[in-house]
């Protein structure tokens, strides 16, 4: 980091009034569990919510057969999608997922978010939160 950026960044920070949104938005871990054959559909859907990194893992569900039938979840081969999403986009993503869970045939699933308390590395934070660098952006924490 060069010295020239430091005073500018400090001024930006001090310039924020209490009502202005913070420059640093928190991240959340969005966990989505869906049927294996719908993996691509849901990863594509999630990408439209500024999610830049997703981790897809094969899994299987453990709900009893009666419960599965009741929920229309006969398929037990599952995919767990771990996505890192910016806090302000999480609600919209969950709403969209909820709508798809209710309307898509065989697309039933579950999604929830877990707050993330820290990330190391400014560039990684910018990548994960999909916020292109304003200036050098070395202090994005």
């Amino acid at each position, binding site marked *: 980091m060069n010295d020239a950026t430091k005073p500018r960044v400090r001024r930006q920070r001090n310039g924020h009034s209490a009502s202005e949104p913070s420059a640093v938005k928190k991240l959340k871990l969005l966990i989505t569990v869906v049927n294996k054959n719908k993996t691509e559909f849901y990863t594509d859907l999630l990408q439209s919510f500024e999610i830049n990194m997703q981790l897809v893992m094969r899994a299987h569900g453990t709900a009893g057969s009666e419960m599965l039938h009741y929920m229309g979840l006969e398929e037990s081969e599952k995919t767990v999608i771990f996505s890192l999403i910016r806090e302000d986009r999480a609600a919209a993503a969950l*709403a969209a997922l909820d709508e798809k869970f209710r309307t898509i045939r065989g697309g039933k699933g579950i999604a929830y978010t*877990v707050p993330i308390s820290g990330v190391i590395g400014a560039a990684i934070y910018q990548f994960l939160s999909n916020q292109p660098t304003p200036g050098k952006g070395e202090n994005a924490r």
Partner: protein
Amino acid sequence: MNFDYEMIVCIVNVGFSEAVMDAAKEFGARGGTVLSARGTAAKEAETIFKITIQPEKEMVIILVPTAIRDDILHALYRSVGLKTPGQGIAFSLPVDHVVGLAQDLPKRDETKKTERKD
């Protein structure tokens, strides 16, 4: 901050995921998801603690209401804890928003009944 739901993560030796779910269901859990994983504990730890660590693991994630979290964690400790053949560890993470749970859906029979009335 209060959370209505918690995600319980339980990592056990391969083959013990059913035991995990049995213990969790006893206290009200409804379903979970099992992922395959591999443990990476250090060789030194094995000699110090006089245990053998099986690298093949199963990771069970269960979403539960916060009210029953402690009961389930205790049940997991008793039935698949480190002192059992399952050699499991369990922890929970706060969950702030959930969509897609079974109780949010209209019941199949109720939907049919209302359709008939209309």
